[in-house]
């Protein structure tokens, strides 16, 4: 039978707390909400950040994955949570972005003094916390069905955020998002059913030991990966993303674009490297990369042609997601001793992290610009720089990362991917990365050029934006830039707890 692969390690309880703390907060707000939504959220946010950091520290200290076996029931019968270097990184990223977004949203989602409870704050904060728990579960889960529940949790938190303002477009976008995500979920679940039928386990470690090429495995992985692609909005399955991410309030868009679409990608990564039979299937990896290439080129061009700022940023998200899918053939063709030591892997993860920071900052900046100007039509952004100078600067800095220009995390990520692609002679990927960079620069500069132009006569700022909100946005952008100073080589931390590949 299965070897006893999991043992609760010291500090494992942190994982449980990482998953449960936001839920406790969410329940508390739901039950006692009445004016306290924000206050409760602001207890949970730093707490969660602290937990995430503690987990990362524990992973770094022990040099091994942190594990918790729930109820002591050994997988595959029971469920285990495990944080390796990659999950710990993503959890810290999630915590950071959520804290930043929380600070940003403080002003906009507080309960008005004359009401006992208002809809927007109550809903916003509970959903945010639900989303956090879902993300942490996605990053920690080791059981494919447990991950299904986590994905659903994520969808249920994300969809209502889209239609918070109740306008027709956003309700429409939310429904589309929900329905398409549901197809993705069902595909994922179908695959899980097939895998269970074939191997009698849904535990990843168990599957890794048993999985071999047979029709059940192929069809299951095909369904699951494509289902997850639909949730990650990879071209041509991006129909739901632009309206949803553009329609949500800025704070929600930031989280949706920065984190929520990354969760399904993370699962694809895990399915591919931790579950699929090894050695991997080159042709399938190429297929994933080609979809990535199309995403990059096609959606960047569309982003360039958008009229509204938030739609532009949303399309840019689809394009940037494309970069992540380039990782598969690059890692597989690399001659590094294990996938985790290849430059392509590191580049992919760095792209994920830096895009998350940059995109969060960009959406928040766009939100502030729209608040100050009362609209977000790119052609009319003149004067934004006088109204919200720091936000425009943050937009530019975040843009640096999207364009892949130094110094920025995006640059290092793209440089690593480019190096990996050159080393493995994947010239189409090389071309896509370069073209994508040029297109991204074009759409970012188009906005910057407008925003920095002199204001028109009669220009006036509609709303005064408190300084701290602008500083939050700037902080996110700066962290994306600071990532550009990481060394250009695989990081040992990202390989901790990963199983070596042949």
């Amino acid at each position, binding site marked *: 039978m299965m070897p006893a692969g999991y043992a609760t390690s010291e500090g494992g309880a942190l994982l449980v707390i990482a998953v449960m703390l936001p839920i406790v907060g969410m329940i508390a707000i739901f039950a006692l909400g009445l004016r306290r939504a924000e206050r409760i959220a602001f207890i949970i946010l730093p707490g969660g950040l602290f937990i995430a950091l503690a987990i990362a520290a524990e992973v770094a200290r022990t040099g091994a994955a942190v594990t918790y076996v729930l109820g002591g029931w050994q997988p595959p019968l029971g469920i285990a949570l495990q944080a390796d270097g990659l999950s710990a990184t993503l959890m810290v990223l999630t915590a950071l972005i959520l804290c930043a977004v929380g600070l940003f949203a403080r002003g906009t989602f507080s309960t008005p003094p004359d009401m006992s409870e208002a809809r927007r704050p109550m809903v916003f904060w509970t959903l945010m916390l639900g989303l956090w728990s879902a993300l942490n579960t996605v990053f920690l889960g080791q059981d494919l069905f447990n991950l299904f529940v986590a994905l659903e949790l994520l969808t249920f938190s994300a969809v209502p955020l889209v239609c918070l303002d109740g306008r027709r477009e956003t309700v429409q976008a939310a429904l589309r998002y929900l329905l398409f995500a549901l197809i993705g979920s069902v595909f994922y679940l179908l695959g899980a059913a097939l895998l269970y039928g074939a191997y009698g386990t849904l535990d990843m470690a168990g599957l890794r030991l048993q999985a071999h090429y047979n029709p059940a495995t192929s069809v299951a992985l095909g369904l699951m990966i494509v289902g997850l692609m639909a949730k990650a909005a990879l071209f041509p399955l991006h129909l739901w993303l632009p309206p949803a991410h553009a329609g949500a309030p800025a704070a929600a868009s930031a989280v949706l674009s920065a984190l929520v679409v990354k969760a399904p990608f993370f699962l694809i990564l895990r399915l591919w490297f931790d579950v699929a039979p090894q050695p991997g299937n080159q042709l399938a990896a190429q297929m994933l990369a080609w979809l990535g290439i199309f995403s990059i080129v096609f959606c960047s061009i569309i982003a360039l042609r958008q009229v509204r700022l938030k739609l532009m940023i949303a399309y840019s998200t689809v394009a940037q997601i494309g970069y992540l899918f380039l990782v598969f053939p690059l890692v597989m063709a690399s001659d590094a001793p294990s996938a985790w030591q290849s430059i392509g892997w590191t580049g992919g993860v760095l792209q994920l992290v830096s895009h998350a920071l940059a995109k969060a900052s960009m959406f928040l900046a766009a939100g502030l610009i729209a608040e100050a100007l009362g609209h977000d039509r790119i052609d009319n952004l003149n004067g934004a720089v006088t109204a919200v100078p720091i936000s425009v600067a943050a937009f530019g800095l975040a843009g640096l990362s999207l364009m892949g220009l130094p110094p920025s995390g995006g640059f290092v990520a793209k440089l690593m991917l480019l190096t990996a692609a050159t080393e493995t002679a994947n010239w189409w990927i090389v071309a896509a990365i370069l073209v994508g960079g040029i297109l991204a620069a074009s759409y970012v500069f188009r906005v910057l050029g407008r925003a920095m132009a002199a204001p028109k006569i009669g220009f006036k700022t509609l709303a005064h934006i408190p300084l701290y909100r602008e500083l939050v946005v700037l902080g996110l952008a700066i962290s994306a830039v600071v990532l550009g100073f990481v*060394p250009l080589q695989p990081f040992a931390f990202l390989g901790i707890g990963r199983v070596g590949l042949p």
Partner: protein
Amino acid sequence: MMDSGLLLVATLAFPLAMVVACLHPAFYARILTWLPLAAVPGLLAALFERGDSIVIAPAPLRLTLALDEVGAMLLGGASLLWGAAGFYASISMCGRPGAGRFAIWWLLTLTGSLGVFIVADMTSFYLVFSLASLAAYGLVSFEGTARAQRAGFVYMALALLGEALILLGFVMLVTAAPGGNPLIRDAVAMLPDSPLESPAVLLLILGFGLKMGLLPLHVWMPLAHPVAPVPASAVLSGVIVKAGVIGLIRFLPLEVPSPDWGMALVGLGLITAFYGVLVGLTQSHAKTILAYSTVSQMGVVAAIIGGGMTTGAPHTAVLAAFYALHHLLVKGALFLGVGIAGATGRRHYVSFVLIPMALLSLSLAGLPFTSGALAKLATKPLFGDGVSALLASLSAAGSTMLMLHFLGRLQLLANDDHEGIPQRPLMLVWAVVAGASFIVPWALFANVSGYALADAIQPDALWAASWPILLGATLTLITTRFISRMPTVPEGDIIVVLDKLAPLVMRIGSGIDRTDEVLRRWPVASIGLLSLAIAFGTVLQFGR
């Protein structure tokens, strides 16, 4: 004299610190006043620093600065021009709306453009190179007119293309060298053994050539340089294009004889040199003519580097840098001079403007006793004795014609106010740059070229320098009428062809929009989903 490397660090850190200080409104309001100081550390570094790499951040980052002879020459010249132009700007831009914004772009561009001369590792080079390229967009498009916007757009598009080419070239270089971020010289040393040598060299030539304005990637230059305010034009045309020169010098394996690449570069350079002259002759704006002259002169520099590369001549880098330094100072002075000319009335035109400008102009063509003559003399051996040497001399004749044409158009700029004289500080600054353009090359000549100063005033040398000018002057006399009747080639010449493509591009764009609209329809996207799932499952099962 100073603690080793401190000045080099300050070269980059000081202007950046000024940018950061702009966050303080009080400083931001007076930023223009401080503009001239930004380049001072760079100038001091060029004068007093010499030596090996200073590692600012240790491995694995390896942010490394170094200043060799080539770097010092160009850094000194560039800092001087930045300082002088900064002073000019602090007066001429004073009180204009958006001056603060201008200053920030200025400082960023300055940092990048000085940085390319002193960084020694690949990543930092790319960083400062991009900074110089992209921040210059702010200077190009500053005026905000339709013309400036178009120029800015073209500039940006091509700069980004150049960035992409260079990045890929770098990646190919780095894949040959071990470690994440090698020093430039290590990477270049490994290049001849790399299987990717040819594509890497090609990409680097294209990328840096674009920055220098080599045909056919020069189209941005005649658009971008003239539209900026005068001091910005001076540094754009004087300094920024040298980022391409230093790129070629640093990244091409010049010490290894490679006749194929060398001849190709010579050919490209000379063609560019003549092309710049020919198109420049049809232009009517003084600043545009100067921009075309830059295209032409950078062609000559490329040819010099190519000539050296053919034989693997040992001093190619230094000689090319020397020529570049000459052009840097002279072109800077010429652009500033255009500003001076605009402020001078008829009365003082000849003495204040025409004579100095004529000397400067003909210096570009190699007028004896000017820096141009020295530069041409020093680089002559690289061309050998064959056709390319003759063509190089003929290009000087071309330059003569172009510069005479420039002088002719310049007087149209003279101030309506008959008595007008430019502000005294502006005159002074201009005089400093113009003076430096004469003196500095003389000071360096013996050191750089291996000739004695006396060699430069031998009759042979004088004749070699003079005949192209005489030829050019004669040709100008003959063709004046003809040229004045020639139709004006639009600025940016072949960009016009691309303009014709604009509707096509728009059509493709809206085609993509429509495709996206179709793809985002529910049934289409879900059919895509089903097909993908089937395809993916099939590939997983059978595609091994």
